[in-house]
């Protein structure tokens, strides 16, 4: 079966090549972050030193973690985690109703869900910020989490997935005496690990790099989010780009870990989809 090994090797090379192509700009950020102060743009033309630091230093990372950015990482982690937990619960329930339950007006509710994510969030931030401020919710974790949990795209995603679970499974469960919530929690959810992980990733990443909303509704130091903190660093008369990139690299490390762990659980549900075989 040498052709198979040959093909597999080719595939492996292709995978690594694609992966490296995507990683290259992030690698460049890391290299720049390791450069001493003022050297960010010294090696722009193509040379070995464009991609290797010739005077590496951790000073930028240290400076950035000790500053407001460090706090912002904590804030963003808290907000993102809360968003994922509450958002998954809330959206999966709605998706279940839309996929598995039959009721009058189902199409209308689905339409509402889809229309909601057609409305550009950036276009409603101003009225939404006013609503939050009139409820004195500015500069709070509530203001940051609340708008993110009713995510039309996530409901849509999960609904598409739930539609793939055959009616027979549902009916069998009902015969067994399970109520709607039991069917949801004990049958649908375990079958949906992949989709739930995808949904969690969507919710997490949306919050992790959100910028305009936190800027308008929670700019106070105690609630500052990562993208706002980084923007602040980039907005002075003399920008310390080495530090900006150090911050950006740290910003990508946490999702890297989270995603890596999450994606390992992909495919775990195949073994349990009895009725698919």
């Amino acid at each position: 079966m040498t052709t198979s090994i040959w093909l597999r090797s080719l595939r492996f090379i292709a995978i690594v090549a694609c992966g490296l192509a995507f990683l290259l700009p992030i690698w460049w950020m890391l290299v720049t972050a390791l450069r001493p102060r003022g050297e960010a743009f010294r090696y722009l033309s193509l040379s070995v030193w464009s991609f290797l630091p010739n005077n590496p230093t951790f000073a930028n990372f240290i400076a950035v973690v000790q500053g407001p950015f460090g706090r912002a990482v904590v804030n963003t982690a808290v907000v993102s985690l809360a968003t994922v937990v509450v958002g998954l619960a809330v959206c999966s329930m709605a998706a279940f109703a839309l996929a598995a339950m039959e009721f009058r007006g189902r199409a209308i509710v689905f339409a509402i869900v889809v229309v909601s994510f057609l409305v550009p969030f950036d276009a409603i931030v101003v009225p939404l910020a006013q609503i939050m401020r009139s409820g004195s919710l500015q500069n709070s974790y509530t203001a940051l989490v609340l708008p993110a949990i009713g995510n039309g795209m996530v409901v849509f995603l999960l609904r598409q997935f739930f539609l793939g679970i055959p009616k027979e499974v549902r009916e069998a469960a009902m015969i067994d005496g399970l109520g709607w919530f039991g069917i949801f929690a004990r049958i649908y959810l375990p079958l949906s690990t992949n989709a739930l992980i995808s949904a969690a990733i969507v919710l997490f990443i949306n919050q992790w790099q959100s910028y305009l909303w936190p800027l308008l509704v929670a700019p106070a130091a105690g609630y500052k989010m990562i993208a706002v903190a980084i923007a602040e660093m980039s907005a002075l008369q003399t920008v310390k780009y080495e530090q900006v990139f150090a911050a950006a690299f740290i910003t990508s490390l946490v999702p890297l870990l989270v995603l890596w762990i999450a994606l390992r659980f992909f495919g775990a549900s195949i073994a349990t989809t009895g009725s698919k075989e």
Partner: protein
Amino acid sequence: MTKRSVLLGAATLMAVLGMAAPATAKTTLHLLTAQPVEEMQPVVQAFEAANPDVKIETETVPYENYAAEIASRMGSQDPTLEVYFVDAPQVPAMASKGWLVNFDGVKTEIEAAINERARPALLYKGGYWALPYTTSVQLLFYNKDLLAKAGISNPSAAEADRLTWQQVVDTAKNAQKAGVKWGLQLEQNGRYYQSQSFFESSGAGPGLTGDDLLTPAVNTDKWIQTATWYQSIFNTGVAPRNIAAEQSNDIFRNGDAAFFWGGTWNLARFNQTPGLHYGVVASPYIAGGKPATPTDAWDIGVSPYAANKDLARKFALFMTLGDGAKYIALGAHIPLIASAYDEYMKRARDTAVDDAGKKEMTDARDVMAYELKYAVVSRPRSIGFVILDDVMARTFLDIQGGADVKTTLDAAQNQLKSSFSRL
């Protein structure tokens, strides 16, 4: 979102804050700025020390979105927007929208504390709507080593020897012939702040005319003439196109440009760059015209919706006309208040690392002083300024990129007219 619910919200907020505060019920006052929080620490601490029942919360918002933040919070009459930095050219627009509290009561003190040429920048319809805080000035930096390599002697910093732009470009070209990568780098890459200078200097004007400065005039013959000259700097390869403003001083620092036209905040940075031997002269002017150096930075304003209006006024006055003024010297911009100005100049000189540096700083100081008194031209005091700023930034970028000057200016004229009709 009625006023009542806002008041209720504010009252609840204050009650909650009151409950969370220690026994000596402190009032919280909010300061909004686009500068780094650390820059505000000294003045905040000084005020808190003098007023122990007050706690000041500083919030920073990046400059890019600063205007949006204010607009959003004013729209909901947010009582937690109290003392805030005002981008100087936006005072007319903000005053006309009722976003600023009037300070005519301290008119005499304001006029006593600042240079006469800086006064118009604070006025709207004859009244003072903000307190003076900082200003700025552009300097022409040159790289002594690169000029020497090309056999060019250093320009003089004396007032009478101010260069014309044409002279600078010619010298820059000669330097490039000797191997320098770029002849001239403009720090702000097309932004109106710098580009306005060319047009004021040549006599083409700021692009706005009329009593209210609401009639666009960017496609006059003079404008086309000046813009064509501006384009030639890029077309002939003297200046690089499209380098982001924040990245442009690196080109000079890395020794890739003979001349650099940028702000005084670069002085400290260049001083700390080993191997960079720079000199400073005044901003050039268009031959046949007059000097018109870019200026203005921040003022301090108070919101009429502030929860603690009197306290906000008190702090604003402390920061500017009061004892807090000396802390203005700690920032990146030049203080407008005379006492702080002297302190700032002294500190700037001290960032020099050697005698050559100290001489440059003395030159720089003299140039800055002269410019601020005689040669600066503010941005136009129009309520349509932000629109002008935005449209012209894109227009200048297009012109830099080689677009046909007349067509581009005509399009800008139409866009300005159209946008102004919405005011």
